[in-house]
């Protein structure tokens, strides 16, 4: 081992230099929690977009589109000082859209359930592994 407070200058090394020393303080500030060890299979589940989620977004988006079109049409009618009219198919479209969206929102596919289950597992890991605040004054190595 080399001594501390040396100046090593202009040397050539073809083998490692070994120095005495240790970790001087635990950087608690940057340690949020124990990382979750994600497996490749778990990663594939998280990466997969749930089909029910996709259907929900598509349906709710389409329903909102119909609704905005109806509102726009009504505003134009009011500007023209006419009575706004709503077609029957527009009412049906919005109604079916809302019902379908609710169904996709609350009826989960197998992969959706699997993903939610994994999210619960990961959440549980972080709940039980809170940020660490130990070690600095533990017996024998406190400095």
């Amino acid at each position, binding site marked *: *081992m*080399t001594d*501390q*407070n*040396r*100046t*090593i*200058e*202009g*040397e*050539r*090394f*073809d*083998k*490692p*230099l*070994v*120095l*005495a*020393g*240790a*970790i*001087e*303080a*635990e*950087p608690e*500030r*940057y*340690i*949020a929690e124990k*990382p979750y060890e994600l497996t490749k299979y778990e990663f594939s589940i998280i990466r997969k977009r749930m089909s029910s989620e996709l259907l929900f977004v598509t349906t709710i988006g389409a329903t909102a589109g119909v609704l905005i079109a109806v509102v726009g049409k009504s505003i134009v009618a009011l500007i023209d000082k006419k009575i706004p009219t709503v077609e029957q198919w527009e009412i049906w479209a919005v109604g079916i859209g809302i019902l379908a969206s609710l169904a996709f929102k609350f009826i989960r596919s197998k992969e959706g359930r699997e993903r939610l289950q994994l999210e619960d597992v990961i959440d549980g890991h972080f709940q039980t592994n809170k940020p*660490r605040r130990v*070690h*600095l004054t533990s017996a024998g*190595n406190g400095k």
Partner: protein
Amino acid sequence: MNLDNLPPQYVPFQRVRLGSNVLENVVAVVSINGFIPLLVGDGENPRVWLSIPTNRDGTEWYPLIKENFSSHPDVSVEVAKKRVTVRTPQGTVLNVIKNTENSLVFFKLDLRPFGLNVYADEGALHVMGNKLAKNEFKNIQVVIAIGSTAQTGSETLTPS
């Protein structure tokens, strides 16, 4: 990570300039009890992996930066053209640039906010109170091994 467990994406630079020291054909700058806390690999831009100790024995480490991705909100990794800068609330801890000769230059290295007495400016590298300047390290896996159970790939303790 240690020498047997380096990230598969890590490609070492052939030539590194660190605090007026020149490193050639080197895998890692420093190890602590066999653990390698910092890697800066070659790529389109330099790629940084940085782990910090979670205890003073150095038996557990937290992956703070994984291939330029910060896993902590207080630590930012800025990747500009050929340059990577790592900032913390205590200041910049790493500033490296890949130059036109495909070598890596450390403009700044400071691991002191993480409890490791390792820092460098353009003039010298400071490790555990020792100052290293204008040295050459060639064909070795780890330049400096710190600790009592240092695993270096070599048994030599002194300059050649």
